[in-house]
C-alpha cells in the first residue's frame, strides 16, 4: 500500500512534465503575443519587454528555463500585471475558489448521497421519483441560469443571502450551491444506481437475517459497495469542483482564479496561463490518486501492484 502510493506520487512527476511541455507549446503556437495591442507600441519597447521576459531566447532555452524555475516553485512573471508574480496572483485567487469549491463539494455529497439512498431504498415510490426528478433538473440547469435565479430569489426577493460579493461566510452559500448542484445531481443518480446494485445482494439478506437495524444495514453493509461508482466519478469531479467555475465566480463577483484564467488566455499572458494549468493539473492528478487509494480502502478486493 505504502509502496503503491510512493510509486504513484513519483509517477506524477513525468505526467506533469508532459502536460507542462505540451501546454507550453500550445500557448506559444497561438497567434499574437502578450505585447500586441491596438495602440502602436514602439518596436524598441516591445523588444525591451521581450528581452525582460526572456521571450527573445531560443525556444528550447525558454522551456528549459521555465522548467527550472518551476522546479524551484517559481511560476514566473505576469505580463498583464507586471507588478505581480504569477505565484502572487494564484495565491490570492485560489483560496476563494477553493473555499467555494469545498462547500460546493460538501453540498454535492450531502444532497447527492442522501437523495440517492432515499431513491434506492424507496425505489419506484414518490420519494424515488421526486429525488430523481430533482436530480434531472439539477443536471439540465446550466449554472448561468441557476446562479442568477438563486441570486434573484434568495438575494433580491427574500433578502436572506447576499446576491453577490465576498468577505463574509454568507457570501459562500449561493455560489457554492450554484456550482455544486450539477454534481449533486450526478452523485444522487450514481448513489441510487450503486445502492440498487447491493440492495438485493445476498450479503444484505444475510445482514437482515442477523436482525440488524435497517440503518445499520444501510450504513455498514450497503454504503461501501453502493458508493463505489460515486468515488470513481469524484476523482475528476472533485478537481473540477474545487478549481471552480469562471461563470459562477463572475456571476457572484467572487475574487477567484477563474476569471484570471480566461483573461490570461485572451491576453496571451503566457506565464499566468501556464501557472494556472500547472496548478490545475497537479490538483487533478493528486485527486485521482486519492480516489484510487480510497477505492482500495472501500473495496478490499482491489489489489495494489
Amino acid at each position: 500500500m505504502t509502496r503503491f502510493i510512493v510509486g504513484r506520487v513519483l509517477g506524477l512527476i513525468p505526467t506533469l512534465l508532459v502536460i507542462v511541455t505540451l501546454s507550453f507549446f500550445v500557448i506559444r503556437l497561438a497567434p499574437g503575443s502578450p505585447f500586441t495591442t491596438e495602440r502602436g507600441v514602439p518596436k524598441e519597447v516591445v523588444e525591451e519587454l521581450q528581452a525582460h521576459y526572456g521571450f527573445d531566447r531560443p525556444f528550447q532555452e525558454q522551456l528549459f528555463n521555465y522548467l527550472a524555475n518551476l522546479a524551484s516553485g517559481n511560476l514566473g512573471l505576469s505580463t498583464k500585471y507586471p507588478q505581480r508574480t504569477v505565484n502572487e496572483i494564484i495565491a490570492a485567487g485560489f483560496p476563494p475558489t477553493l473555499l467555494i469549491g469545498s462547500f460546493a463539494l460538501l453540498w454535492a455529497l450531502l444532497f447527492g448521497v442522501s437523495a440517492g439512498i432515499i431513491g434506492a431504498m424507496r425505489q419506484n415510490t414518490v420519494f424515488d421519483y421526486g429525488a430523481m426528478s430533482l436530480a434531472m433538473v439539477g443536471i439540465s440547469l446550466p449554472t448561468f441560469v441557476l446562479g442568477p435565479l438563486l441570486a434573484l430569489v434568495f438575494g433580491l426577493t427574500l433578502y436572506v443571502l447576499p446576491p453577490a460579493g465576498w468577505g463574509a461566510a454568507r457570501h459562500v452559500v449561493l455560489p457554492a450551491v450554484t456550482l455544486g448542484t450539477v454534481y449533486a445531481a450526478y452523485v444522487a443518480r450514481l448513489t441510487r444506481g450503486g445502492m440498487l446494485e447491493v440492495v438485493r445482494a445476498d450479503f444484505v439478506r444475510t445482514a437482515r437475517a442477523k436482525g440488524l437495524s435497517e440503518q445499520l444495514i444501510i450504513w455498514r453493509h450497503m454504503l461501501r459497495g453502493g458508493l463505489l461508482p460515486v468515488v470513481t466519478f469524484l476523482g475528476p469531479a472533485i478537481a473540477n469542483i474545487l478549481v471552480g467555475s469562471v461563470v459562477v465566480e463572475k456571476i457572484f463577483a467572487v475574487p477567484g482564479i477563474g476569471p484570471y484564467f480566461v483573461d490570461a488566455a485572451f491576453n496571451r499572458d503566457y506565464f499566468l496561463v501556464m501557472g494556472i494549468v500547472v496548478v490545475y493539473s497537479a490538483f487533478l492528478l493528486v485527486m485521482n490518486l486519492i480516489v484510487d487509494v480510497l477505492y482500495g480502502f472501500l473495496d478490499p478486493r482491489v489489489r495494489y501492484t
Partner: protein
Amino acid sequence: MSAHANTGGAGEPLLRVDDLAVHFETDEGVVKAVDGVSFEVQRGEVLGIVGESGSGKSVANQAIVGLVPRPPGFYPRGRIHFDGQQVLGLSERKLRDIRGNRIAMIFQDPMTSLNPYLKVERQLTELLERHRNLDRRKARTGAIDMLVQVGMPEAERRVDAYPHELSGGMRQRVMIAMALLCEPELLIADEPTTALDVTIQAQVLDLIRDLQARLGTSVILITHDLGVVAGMAHRVAVMYAGRIVEQADTDTLFAAPRHPYTGGLLRSVPRIDSEPGRAIEAIKGLPPNPAALPAGCFFSPRCGRASERCGQVYPDRDGDAGHYVHCHHPLSEGEP
C-alpha cells in the same frame, strides 16, 4: 444448551407452521409461491425440506423470520408459531430480536452471502453486539471461539481476513459460525452445500450434523438433493409447486415413497451400485409456472399415473401425521 427459556409446554413443537401461504404480486398476476403449507419442527429435530428450485421451499422458510420482501410479497393466510408465539405479522422490531438470535439462517452461496467489504470479525461481532450486548473486545473473543468450534484453521488469524481471502469451505464455516454464534434454537440451512465442491460438501454436512447433535439445535435443512437429507434429517417434507406433497420420517420416505414425484426424485439420484452406462432417470417435463398452475394436482401433467380426476381435483391429504401424501394414485409399497 440453549440460552433461551422454554415457554412452550412439553410436546409443544418448537415451530409450527399452519396453512401458510406466501403470494407475490407480479406483472403476470399473483404468484402463489407457497400455498397452504403446514409442518412442525420438534426441539432437537432435523426436518428436511426437499424440492426443485421454485418449489417454494426457501420462500416458506424466509417467511418464518419475516424476510420475504413486502411488497411484492404478502401473506393471504397462515399461522407460524415459534416457541408458542405467533411470529407471522409480528412487528419488524420484534422480528429483529428473533432473527440471528433465536432463529438463524445459513444461505446457499457463501461467496455472495458474506459481505465482501467487511472483515470476518466485523460480520461475526456485530451479532454479539446486537443480541448479547457485548463490547467489541469480548465479541471478538466470542467470534474466535466460534470459529474454532466450526473447525476454522488458524481462527485467530482468519478472523481478520476478508471473505475473498478464504476458500469456499472456509467461507461456509464462517457462515455456520455466524448462524450458531447466538446459540439459536432453530437453524434454517437453505441449500448449505449446493455451491460447494463435492469434497467440501461432506465436510460441511458433517459439521452441521455434529454441531446440531452437540447443541441440540433444531434444524430445517432445505435442499434439492435427497442425498443430503438422507444422512441428516429425521423427517422429510417434499414440496412441489408451493405445497407439501408428501411427508414422512426419512427411512420410510426412502424405503416406501408414496407420491409419484418423490418416487421420481429418488430414482433420479445417481447410485453407486447401478450398472455403468445406464442413464439416470429424469422426471419428464418442467415444474409448472407458479403464475399459471394447472388444474387439479399440480404434478399431474408430468405424472405417469395421472388419471382424468388428477387434472380436475387437487388430492386431499391421505395418511396420518407420521406419513401422509397428497395423491389420488399413490405408489404402494415396493412399487418403483
